[in-house]
């Protein structure tokens, strides 16, 4: 979230699209209710299903699953063609006036540089025109046909209301009603928040759906504002934290990136990631990358990381490609992997295409599962009848199952969607011999290190040099680890302007990332968390819920990254002169008397930068402003474009009916072998989409008696029209089949799923709640990912769980 849960109460309009907060995030959704009750805010829901969020919405518009970009692109067209944008904001805070290279092109659904063999783009033409001074050439009049504004206007003019209706199935009047409601928030003192979740991410073009939403918010001037922002409602309690800490194939802590194998030179690695400003007077905060990187290496390798060995840079693995979960299961299935460790992750249920995952796990030599619960993954080799029909005697994988503690049995911090690091305390001892995850990781690591120390082996250096100075090495304590990622001074840290002034003494905890140095004098495991545990103590454990400004800014409750800031880009809530667009909801403002920015939040800005100096509010970007044109930073294009899901009921992309290469995302993550294996509408005519229920959390709560009682049995939802067509009534058992397998479940026939007519053909949607499996106390069921396709988003590789094809048949079941 750019903003946070309580801030939703400051919204004038709430758009829920690609999520269902009332069902999946109920206690956060209450802030929508609060905004409605106390600000007369209105709620708009756009969703394939009439969800629980839709049930309390002021307006609901249906949409075919997988067509969100077309809807949002139509909205962009509406805002631009009706001149319903926040002019001052877009002129000053975005790239509207930037000129794009003359050889950048978009033709018939493909951007310049596409290679149809590799399904990848050469992105070298996706950039700005640079002047001799190294800065981007701009046209403040916005008349140049190569300026971002003109290119964008032309790009989205194609998304007429008729086109939107033809792609999304949304009735034209419903679409226009939503546009009109949203356009009202282009007024400087009106704010819209967008709340989305996996309904936007789990598509082969998920990142671009989210970008399109962000572009809408920029046009309206809603980024940086209270009650505004792009608010990802993340799915797990610490999925934000694990991402912040960089636990993804290609990341390092704090959104730093691992080097690619070509990056043999340390200085070049740093330079590439420390971009110089692209416009005069801009901050380009990533220029501090060397400080963040060296401090992380000092936290990881301690005294062994020195200037002479490039702070341990060469100990880090270098990427040949991203080894994301889809790539890993592809490799595992091909027999290219031997071992796998699943720590609190149940991939047999949550990775796409269960049969492929199961086959892959069966080819491993060893699998280690660390979990509080008996997951399906840990029993993938066991026969559970129709729900897991495998023969254990044919599976040679050695499996270890290690019991870990749950939240109630440990201290530690979790990062919620609003970026709050909240500390929690151990309440009880774990059952049996269960141990906490830190003890388990330490147990394996210390054994390994001992083996390398005594026997030697392949490249032991990073293992032997890893800093492990915990009071009890077999059990690193949460407070020790929190101090380590927050950071401390290894030597006195002095003021860069006055070397005699000591900011932090040697050995003390740092106050924040501004104190990080690139000379090895600071250690900080995750720069964006810097200051979470300072000399003032554990700020994550703070519990003062006072809200002095009355707009939900509880700065003394826990700690928010970065720098305890609650609303990102909050400088953009003020006009160029530094005056809040809405003084009644002031986040920050320029105080000319003190020469500083201040307010109800920590300024997301250089605190003493006079507005007259013209620094832009998007300080992480070298442009200083927000980008509509993504340059070369997205794999599948600088402007989002609608493509059909890999499995779609439409034979052609209505935007590009004559170009088969542009039917689905041309750069989507598809492995050869899978490409020809997608379901076709002749055999699988219905659109399926997966989702959560409010009574359950993924595959955990089927282990909890009360949750199993309230929602005991697997079901699927179909609309009344499809029910009538197939002779299915509520309560009938049905088989839902995709190209990859089938599940059997009870049918719920409902008005909540309506049918669309697209290209003269009816399109029905089948809803598939995900929560059942073959372990737990709820009735056994089929893992829903039996059905889902092995295809990922072009940028994040997130699988397309929200739109694929199935068939449905009524069956007779012997009870």
């Amino acid at each position: 979230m750019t903003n946070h849960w309580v801030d939703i109460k400051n919204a004038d309009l709430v758009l829920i699209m690609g999520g269902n907060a009332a069902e999946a995030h109920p206690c956060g959704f209450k802030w929508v209710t609060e905004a409605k009750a106390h600000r007369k805010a209105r709620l708009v829901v756009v969703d394939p299903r009439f969800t629980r969020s839709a049930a309390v919405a002021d307006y609901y518009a249906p949409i075919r699953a997988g067509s969100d970009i077309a809807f949002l692109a139509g909205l962009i067209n509406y805002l631009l063609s009706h001149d319903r944008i926040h002019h001052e904001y877009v002129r000053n805070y975005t790239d509207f006036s930037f000129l794009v290279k003359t050889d950048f092109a978009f033709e018939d659904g493909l951007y310049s540089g596409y290679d149809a063999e590799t399904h990848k783009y050469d992105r070298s033409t996706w950039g700005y025109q640079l002047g001799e001074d190294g800065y981007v050439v701009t046209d403040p009049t916005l008349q140049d046909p190569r300026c971002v504004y003109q290119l964008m206007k032309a790009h989205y003019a194609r998304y007429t209301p008729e086109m939107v209706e033809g792609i999304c199935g949304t009735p034209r009047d419903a679409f226009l009603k939503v546009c009109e409601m949203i356009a009202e928030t282009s007024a400087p003192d009106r704010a819209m928040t967008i709340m989305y979740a996996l309904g936007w991410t789990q598509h082969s073009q998920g990142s671009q759906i989210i970008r399109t939403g962000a572009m809408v918010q920029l046009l309206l001037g809603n980024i940086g504002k209270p009650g505004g922002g792009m608010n990802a409602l993340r799915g797990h309690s610490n999925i934000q934290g694990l991402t912040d800490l960089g636990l993804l194939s290609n990341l390092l802590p704090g959104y730093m990136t691992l080097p690619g194998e070509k990056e043999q030179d340390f200085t070049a690695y740093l330079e590439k990631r420390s971009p110089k400003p692209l416009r005069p007077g801009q901050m380009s905060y990533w220029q501090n990358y060397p400080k963040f990187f060296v401090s992380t290496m000092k936290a990881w390798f301690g005294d062994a990381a020195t200037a002479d060995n490039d702070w341990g840079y060469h100990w880090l693995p270098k990427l040949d490609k991203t080894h994301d979960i889809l790539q890993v299961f592809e490799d595992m299935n091909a027999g290219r992997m031997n071992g796998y460790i699943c720590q609190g992750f149940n991939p047999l249920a949550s990775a796409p295409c269960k049969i492929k995952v199961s086959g892959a796990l069966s080819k491993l030599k060893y699998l280690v599962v660390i979990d509080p619960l008996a997951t399906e993954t840990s029993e993938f080799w066991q026969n559970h009848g129709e729900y897991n029909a495998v023969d254990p005697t044919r599976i040679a994988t050695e499996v270890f199952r290690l019991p870990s503690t749950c939240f109630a049995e440990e201290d530690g911090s979790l990062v919620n969607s609003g970026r709050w690091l909240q500390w929690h305390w151990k309440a009880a001892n774990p059952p049996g011999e269960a141990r906490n995850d830190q003890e388990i990781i330490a147990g394996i690591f210390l054994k390994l290190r001992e083996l390398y120390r005594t026997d030697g082996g392949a490249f032991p250096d990073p293992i032997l040099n890893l800093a492990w100075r915990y009071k009890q090495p077999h059990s690193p304590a949460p407070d020790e680890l929190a101090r380590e990622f927050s950071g401390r001074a290894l030597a006195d840290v002095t003021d860069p302007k006055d070397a005699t002034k000591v900011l932090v003494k040697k050995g003390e905890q740092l106050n924040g990332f501004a104190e990080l140095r690139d000379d090895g004098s600071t250690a900080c495991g995750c720069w964006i968390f810097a200051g979470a545990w300072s000399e003032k103590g554990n700020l994550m454990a703070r519990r003062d819920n006072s809200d002095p400004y009355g707009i939900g800014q509880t700065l003394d409750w826990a700690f928010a990254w970065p720098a305890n800031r609650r609303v990102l880009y909050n400088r953009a809530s003020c006009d160029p002169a530094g005056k809040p667009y809405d003084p009644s909801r002031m986040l920050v403002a320029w105080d000319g008397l003190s020469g500083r920015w201040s307010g109800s939040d920590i300024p997301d800005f250089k605190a003493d930068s006079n507005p007259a100096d013209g620094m832009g509010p998007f300080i992480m970007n070298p442009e200083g402003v927000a980008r509509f044109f993504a340059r070369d930073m997205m794999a599948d294009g600088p402007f989002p474009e609608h493509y059909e899901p890999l499995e779609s009921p439409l034979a052609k992309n209505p935007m590009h009916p004559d170009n088969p290469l542009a039917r689905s995302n041309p750069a989507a993550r598809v492995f050869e072998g899978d490409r020809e294996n997608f379901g076709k509408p002749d055999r699988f005519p219905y659109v399926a989409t997966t989702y959560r229920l409010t009574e359950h959390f993924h595959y955990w709560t089927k282990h909890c008696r009360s949750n199993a009682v309230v929602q005991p049995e697997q079901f699927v939802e179909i609309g009344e029209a499809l029910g009538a067509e197939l002779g299915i009534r509520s309560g009938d058992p049905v088989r839902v089949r995709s190209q990859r397998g089938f599940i059997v479940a009870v049918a719920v026939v409902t008005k909540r799923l309506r049918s669309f007519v697209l290209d003269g053909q009816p399109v029905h949607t089948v809803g598939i709640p995900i929560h059942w499996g073959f372990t737990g106390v709820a009735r056994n069921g089929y893992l829903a990912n039996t059905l889902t396709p092995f295809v990922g988003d072009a940028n994040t590789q997130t699988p397309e769980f929200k739109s694929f094809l199935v068939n449905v048949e009524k069956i007779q079941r012997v009870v």
Partner: protein
Amino acid sequence: MTLSRRQFFKVCAAGAGTTSLALLGFSPDQALAEVRAFKLARATETRNTCPYCSVGCGVLIYTLGDGSKNVRSEVIHVEGDPDHPVNRGTLCPKGAGLKDFIQSEGRLLYPEYRAPNSREWQRISWDEAFTRIAQLMKEDRDANFIATNEAGQTVNRWLTTGMLAASASSNETGYLTHKFARSLGMLAFDNQARV
């Protein structure tokens, strides 16, 4: 009218208006026995965070057991934290069932091992588990570690063993796990944010 304390409460509980008995002068002469006190009154309250979705609701966990060395505390109740600025004491149907997660019969109790082609689990000790896992990892790493690629560039990666980390684990666990995985040279490394 002579009533023991217990009888007095029984009478009071019998119907509306009976609490006025005390006002009429019928108070118990002495406390012969006590009704059972609320369990929460002698429970320990611990502040925690719901482990499910990302709202990060504050929860209060109530345990019995005074923390003495040989006493095992037992969770008896979980409820929303009324001081928490986001959930203000509320919990959803998932959070309301947290006690059943903590005490689920699906909780794993001790390390287990499944041998190749076996149909069953066997119980092992932690030390056996760590020793065997470390051996397997080292054998695989030593055999398949890639120090340099075909172009002769130093790459120091280990691709044949991978790891999935847990997006419900704490930052402290995540941080340690990241250190651990990269020191081994792992790249096949992800968490649920990917899916």
